């Protein structure tokens, strides 16, 4: 066995904990998890069954920690993991899973399958069996500070444009500001109006905020690829930037996995509590709404719906806040079937949208969102994750340009459209 494989096995072994053992001991192969996973329901391929994606971890546990497994090994006919298994499972785990956690919500014995998939990635990544696209993205994230290669110069240029458009100065590196805002590269490049929107909202609500020139990337490619060392490195940069600017809060922007990473996983990845509180932009906006600091006038009469980004709602716990905000500005709001914490994933998160070879698969599984859309026939889909937005754009394009054009809108941007700016200033 190669050294790389041994490295992978040793990393995989380190993933074992009481949770994993209780999960693997409880699984009776009932297959319910498959019925919740869009990679199975839209392809009919049983290999995308969530618990099947965890097979490398299960076989390691079975072979090295169970009675029958150890007995079989002693007699020389155990089903020990081979390097070929790592190679075979790469596509299932990386291309065929966004770690959206829908499977974890339905397992009758309560297995958090997404939790274990994250651990399987650690083993595969350590052995070098992760997609090249993710490897390059991780390298860019470490070397440049952005998986898409967005430099500080690009960000500054984008900020400059937004300042001009909204007429509000955006100050970087303001020491002592309350909030430090991060951005996903996807937002900076694709939906820069987010920056202008928050500038206007924070001005109207009198929120003291800033952006760090040392580090601004919200997404964590280390988590996407399953490399805790890289993940920790990227988190430390956020911590350094926040500590340097002495902020109280870090805002996680419109991005799903970025939120779960910084809010829920980060302290555990770096092994110590964060020296700041984390808040998702939607949480902050809702708080401002509650406090009467965020006022809107008028609303859109568009028949629209909200796509819950999985790692904000289901894994993040931010479900009600977007709906409160939508209540303010979109009276003609209709929920999709299966919404909130049980929404269907867009199929692009967790690094999947970065993997070029997974494009066809992603397009195919997007069919579930298309179906949800067709059921309610809305004019627009509102979401709060730039990656979801990109995936939606790709998906809708693939399903025929002759379809009625469905608008994709960011929630922050939608709220900002109806923002009352003058009144709030005069208090």
């Amino acid at each position, binding site marked *: 066995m190669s050294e790389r494989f041994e490295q992978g096995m040793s990393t995989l072994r380190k993933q074992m904990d009481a949770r994993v053992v209780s999960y693997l001991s409880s699984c009776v192969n009932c297959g319910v998890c498959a019925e919740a996973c869009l990679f199975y329901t839209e*392809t*009919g*391929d*049983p*290999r995308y069954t969530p618990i*099947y994606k965890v*097979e490398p971890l299960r076989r390691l546990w079975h072979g090295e920690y169970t009675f029958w497994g150890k007995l079989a090994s002693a007699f020389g006919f155990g089903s020990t993991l081979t390097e070929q*298994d790592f*190679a*075979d*499972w*790469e*596509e*299932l785990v990386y*291309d065929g899973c966004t770690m959206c956690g829908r499977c974890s919500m339905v397992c009758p014995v309560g297995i958090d399958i997404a939790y274990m998939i994250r651990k399987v990635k650690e083993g595969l990544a350590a052995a070098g069996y992760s997609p090249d696209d993710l490897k390059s993205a991780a390298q860019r994230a470490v070397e440049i500070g952005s998986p898409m290669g967005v430099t500080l110069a690009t960000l500054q240029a984008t900020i400059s444009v937004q300042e001009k458009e909204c007429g509000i100065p955006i100050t970087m590196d303001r020491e002592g500001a309350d909030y430090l805002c991060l951005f996903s590269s996807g937002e900076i490049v694709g939906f820069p109006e987010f920056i202008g929107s928050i500038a206007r909202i924070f001005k109207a609500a009198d929120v003291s905020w800033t952006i760090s020139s040392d580090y601004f990337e919200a997404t964590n490619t280390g988590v996407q690829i399953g490399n805790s060392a890289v993940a920790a490195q990227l988190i430390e940069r956020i911590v350094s930037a926040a500590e340097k600017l002495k902020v109280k809060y870090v805002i996680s922007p419109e991005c799903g996995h970025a939120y779960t990473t910084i809010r829920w996983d980060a302290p555990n990845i770096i092994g110590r509590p964060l020296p700041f509180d984390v808040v998702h932009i939607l949480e902050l906006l809702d708080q401002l709404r509650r406090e009467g600091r965020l006022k809107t006038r008028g609303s859109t009469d568009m028949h629209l719906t909200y796509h819950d980004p999985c790692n904000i709602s289901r894994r993040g716990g931010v479900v009600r806040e977007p709906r409160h905000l939508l209540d303010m500005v979109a009276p003609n709001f209709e929920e999709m079937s299966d919404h909130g914490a049980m929404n269907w994933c867009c199929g692009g998160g967790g690094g999947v949208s970065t993997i070029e070879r997974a494009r*066809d*698969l992603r397009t*195919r599984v997007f069919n579930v969102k298309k179906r949800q859309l067709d059921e309610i026939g809305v004019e627009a889909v509102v979401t709060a994750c730039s990656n979801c937005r990109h995936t939606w754009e790709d998906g809708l394009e693939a399903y025929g340009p002759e379809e009625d054009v469905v608008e994709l809108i960011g929630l922050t941007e939608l709220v900002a459209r109806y923002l009352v700016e003058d009144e709030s200033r005069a208090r």
Partner: protein
Amino acid sequence: MTAKPAGEKSQRKPHIGRWLVCLLAVVLVVPLIPYTFADRGNVPNPGADLWREVRQREAPVTGTTQVKGVDTGVLINIRGEQWRQFRMQTLLPAGGMVLGAVVGLIALFYLVRGTIRVPGGRSGKRIQRFTEYDRILHWSTVFLFYLLAVTGLVLLYGRFLLIPLLGPDGFAVTASACKEAHNLFGPLFFVVLVLLVINFIRSNLPKWVDIKWLLKGGGLFGGHASAGYFNGGEKIWFWLVTLFGLAICVSGFVLLFQNFDQGRQLMEISHVIHSSLALLLVAGSFGHAYIGTLGMEGSLESMTTGSVDANWAKAHHDLWMEERAAKGLDENAAPSPEQQSPPGKTAPGYQT
């Protein structure tokens, strides 16, 4: 003993023994002669008249008893003996012959005709035919049916076939266990049968094309017979299972739940219905099982995997395929994902 020259000793005495024997015979037989010609007169068995009276009743006349209940006034049930005779002399041999004949005919047919292959070979294209629910219902019915069949056959034929094998004590345990298993699983068979009938009845309504299919012998002996989702033969089997099956269940319930004032007559009739229809259904099941396995290539997978080869479907259910084509269903039928590559192995270039 050394042989003596024949006739040597008997010639010595003047036939005294023979005469003594004759005298004994005369003494014993002669007094009987007057008896033969004497009037025997009426020396009746004191009870004979009563029993004759009782047994020869044409209709069951119920007498009066202290204990009031169904059949309590019937002293002797002559039909019981008739029923027993029917069971032992008619049902068992006839049943055995029917079962044996069917197995024999199937074996003969297989030897002559062999497995009927898919005309033109398999295409590799799969068509979805039975849902998971269809298949679960089917195989539950199969399991319960054969469990009941085997336990039931032990109750009918066990004493002849199993006592030599297991001995009387061994057979006693076995037969007793079989009776209990038969009684326990019978009601489950009813439940599953009802669900099965409800699930498949709409596809089994008779149509003219089925008559034509039957007249052509289903194409079994050459030629082609058109068929829809189910052909005439399948529909006949469905209705046999439905009607015989339900009758077996109803009669089975009569036999099983005996606290509802069933009289002996009802029990006897129920038993006759139950066992004769069951034997016929078992015989029929051999034919069904044969066609679905050895008899026709490509049939079994319809009930195991749920899908069939397109060429199989075109050959045997062409009208069904035409309906599907009209709905545009099979344009993109691809090999099933499981067929693409073995579990866990990524096929080069994953195909949608």
